[in-house]
C-alpha cells in the first residue's frame, strides 16, 4: 500500500532544504509551503508555523483550478495567482510529482518575478526527487 509523500523522510528533507534555499534566493518571500495533492503539509518556511490548514486550502485551490480549466476546455492548469494589497500568492505543481509549491511574496516582488522564482524552485524539487 502506498505511503503519502508527506510521510517519506527523504521527501520531507528535500522539501525543507528547497524552501530554505528559496528563501535565501529572494528577500520578498514571506511564506512558502510544499504540500501533497490531497492536502498534507510536507514542509513550510518559516518552519515553525503550523502548515496543516494552509496545506488543505492550497490543495483545494489547486483542484478547483484544475476543475475550472477542465470545464472551460483550456488544457491543464499551469499556475494560480492570488493578488492582494499586501502581496501575492503564487502556486503551481511540482512537475511529475503529486506535490504543490505555494509561495507568498510581498509587494516588493513583481508577479512575474514571483512566478519565475516559484517555477524555478518547483523544477528544482522535481529534479531532487527524480
Amino acid at each position, binding site marked *: 500500500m502506498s505511503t503519502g509523500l508527506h510521510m517519506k523522510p527523504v521527501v520531507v528533507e528535500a522539501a525543507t532544504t528547497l524552501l530554505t534555499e528559496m528563501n535565501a534566493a529572494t528577500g520578498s518571500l514571506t511564506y512558502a509551503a510544499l504540500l501533497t495533492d490531497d492536502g498534507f503539509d510536507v514542509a513550510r518556511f518559516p518552519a515553525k508555523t503550523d502548515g496543516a490548514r494552509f496545506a488543505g*486550502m492550497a490543495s483545494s485551490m489547486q*483542484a478547483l483550478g484544475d476543475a475550472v480549466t477542465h470545464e472551460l476546455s483550456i488544457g491543464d492548469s499551469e499556475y494560480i495567482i492570488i493578488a492582494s494589497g499586501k502581496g501575492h500568492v503564487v502556486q503551481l505543481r511540482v512537475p511529475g510529482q*503529486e506535490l504543490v509549491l505555494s509561495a507568498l511574496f510581498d509587494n516588493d516582488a513583481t508577479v512575474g518575478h514571483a512566478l519565475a522564482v516559484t517555477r524555478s524552485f518547483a523544477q528544482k524539487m522535481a529534479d531532487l526527487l527524480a
Partner: protein
Amino acid sequence: MAEHVILFTGPMGAGKTTAIQSLSEIEVVRTEANNSERHVVDKATTTVALDYGEILVGAQEKVRLYGIPGQKRFNFMWTILKKRAKGMVLLVNSDAPDPLGEMTFFLNEFRELYDRGGVVIGITRSDVVDGPGVADFAEALERTNPGLVIPVFTVDPRLRHQMQNLLLTLVVNIEMRAAFGLAAARPA
C-alpha cells in the same frame, strides 16, 4: 423555478462523490486528488474541495448537489459550503471505525442545516460488514439529539433509484417543514 441546494456530508469513504455521480444529470464537477491515506481508507482518490452536480425534481425544481471533502483538515470548505445549503444528506459508512460517532459528529458540525431545512441519513456499505443497523443509528440519534425528525435509510450510493428516494425524502421534508413554518407564521 424553485431551487434547493443540498449538501452531501459524511466521513471519507462514505460514498458522497459516488452518490452525486449517481444522481446528477450534468457532468459532475469533481476535485479529486490521489489519496495519501490508503492505510486509513483504501480508495485511490479523494475529494479535496467539492463535488457539484444538478438534478431536476419534477419539471420545475432544480436541486444543486454539493459534496464536501470528508476529512477534517478540509473543514474550511465545510464552512464555505454550508452557508449556501438548505438541507443535508448525511452518508455514514457502516465499516467506519465508529459509524455512530461519525453520524453524531457530522450532525453537530452541520446542525444549522437541520434548522434551516432538513436532514436525511443514509447508511452505506451495510452489506459489507455486520455493523450498526438502522435501529442503532435511530437510537443513537435520539440519545444524542432528542426530538430531531431525521429519516434514516440504508442505501447503496451507486444505485440511482435509492439515492433518488433519499433525496426526494429530504426535499419533501424541507418543503413540509417550510409549509408548517409558514402556516405557523400566519394569523389564525
